[in-house]
């Protein structure tokens, strides 16, 4: 398969944009930045924006006004860089932000019609920089992580606020990212200690279910495959690795005791370091792209963003329908996707296949469409 990027639009911040997050409808984006703010962007034509593939839009700023607009600037909560932003995944009415000031804030729409957000809760606990916030698919749980090496799990009180239900301290260095499994109640965390940890609930408590080793430097980010059977991770070691959860074998139940093995992962693909020439900061996984013939070996596409200024798209497929081993092949590359700046984040649109948002050190958010 070969592909190319067709559409580029951009919108801006006053400093590097660390992360972007789509709302569940796919028509709005939240972004966060070293300028200490988070912003919410909305496609002016709503879903029509994604339908009008015939109309080519070039990358000039003047086109922006007719396609996307900034509907809210959240700049009154954090004293330092806003490192992470996440839309609530069920209805998209709330946004969480995590900051280097150590706090995580929850923002809710003031009313259904207005696109403005107010702070309804501030979650405190991290000793210093909070680096990521992630909502579980149910919207009932939240995870945060930070430089204090900890992962915190928070549970919704039902009124916008959250109570901490667990503090997980097993990483030996700062934790860069947390990510929920799309189907199971599992949390993955990615760390400067070069490992990934998987956490699960066990008897009202959260425990370490697995430690995944293999990367040789900081693991910056990860993405589960849409069904959750695979996990891709990207690292300062410039590789992309794909891991598969081993089938759980429950032994000995006939003997009257119950053995619950740890969740374990094995590496099923390594994309070598020749793909990117500097650290890879972000990865996103989409199921498939519109118009493409899907086979039962097809597992969709990975997008990666790197300090080498490029965004790459990799196709993922099973070697055979029956085996776990994967083929990961480069489909297309966008060099200098944010000029000569690092790419900090790549996010596939959850509703409109093939649409990708990226953000970079140039303070810009771009929206691309992958054409195969």
């Amino acid at each position, binding site marked *: 398969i070969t592909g190319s990027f067709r559409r580029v639009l951009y919108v801006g911040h006053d400093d590097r944009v660390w992360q972007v997050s789509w709302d569940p409808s796919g028509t709005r984006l939240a972004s966060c930045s070293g300028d200490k703010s988070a912003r919410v962007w909305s496609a002016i034509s709503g879903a029509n924006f994604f339908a009008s593939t015939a109309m080519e839009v070039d990358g000039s700023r003047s086109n922006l006004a007719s396609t996307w607009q900034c509907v809210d600037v959240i700049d009154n909560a954090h004293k330092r*860089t806003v490192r992470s932003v996440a839309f609530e995944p069920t209805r998209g009415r709330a946004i969480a932000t995590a900051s*280097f000031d150590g706090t995580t804030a929850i923002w809710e729409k003031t009313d259904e019609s207005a696109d403005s957000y107010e702070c309804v809760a501030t979650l405190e606990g991290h000793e210093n920089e909070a*680096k990521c916030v992630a909502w579980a698919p149910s919207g009932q749980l939240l995870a945060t992580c930070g430089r204090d090496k900890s992962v915190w799990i928070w549970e919704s009180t039902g009124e916008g606020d959250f109570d901490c239900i667990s503090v997980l301290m097993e990483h030996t260095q700062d934790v860069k990212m947390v990510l929920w499994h799309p189907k199971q109640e599992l949390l993955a965390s990615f760390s*400067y200690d070069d490992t990934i940890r998987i956490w699960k609930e066990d008897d009202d408590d959260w425990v370490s279910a697995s430690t995944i080793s293999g990367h040789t430097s900081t693991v910056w980010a990860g993405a589960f495959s849409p069904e959750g059977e695979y996990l891709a991770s990207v690292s300062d070691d410039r590789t992309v690795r794909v891991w598969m959860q081993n089938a759980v074998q429950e032994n000995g139940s006939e003997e009257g005791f119950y053995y619950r093995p740890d969740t374990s992962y094995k590496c099923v693909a390594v994309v070598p370091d020749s793909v990117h020439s500097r650290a890879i900061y972000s990865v996103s996984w989409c199921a498939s792209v519109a118009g493409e013939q899907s086979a039962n070996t097809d597992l969709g596409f990975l997008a990666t963003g790197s300090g080498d200024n490029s965004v790459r798209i990799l196709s993922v497929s099973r070697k055979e329908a029956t085996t776990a081993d994967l083929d990961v092949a480069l489909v297309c590359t966008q060099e200098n996707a944010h000029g000569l*700046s690092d790419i900090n984040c790549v996010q596939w649109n959850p509703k409109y296949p093939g649409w990708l948002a990226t953000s970079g050190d140039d303070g810009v958010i771009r929206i691309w469409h992958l054409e195969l």
Partner: protein
Amino acid sequence: MNITQKINDAPLVYEVVSKARGVQLGDFDDGIDDPIDSEEVYELIRNINDPEHPLTLEQLHVANREHIYVDDGSNRVLIEFTPTIPHCSMATLIGLCIRVRLLRSLPERFKVDIRIREGTHQSESQVNKQLNDKERVAAALENTYLLDVVNQCLATAV
């Protein structure tokens, strides 16, 4: 109690072989392609003050001309610096000063890697990892105390 005890209170001080960069053809003519070279990068960092002593990185041989690698065409700079002693706890701070100096002075297109010269520090890999983690650097530069210290070290580098 001496709270200002230095990690290395008697460092070797080297005579500075003055090799000021002479006026070059490209300096006044925008028409001449004038790539950034290692000499230019050395000029930027040699007068950074050591955090412990009123001495420059050049005088202490922490920064060396020969350990600066610049590839203007591919926008890359690699700087290897040499701490005065292998257990120098100031190594990260010195590296951060070099990074900030280059962040402020070099065109944004450059990707800068800063490393300890191999075999010259006992925590070489930890320091290297920290200095090249953009998130850690960004967070450090929001720390006003640390930024003050860095700015003091950079005050001499003009």
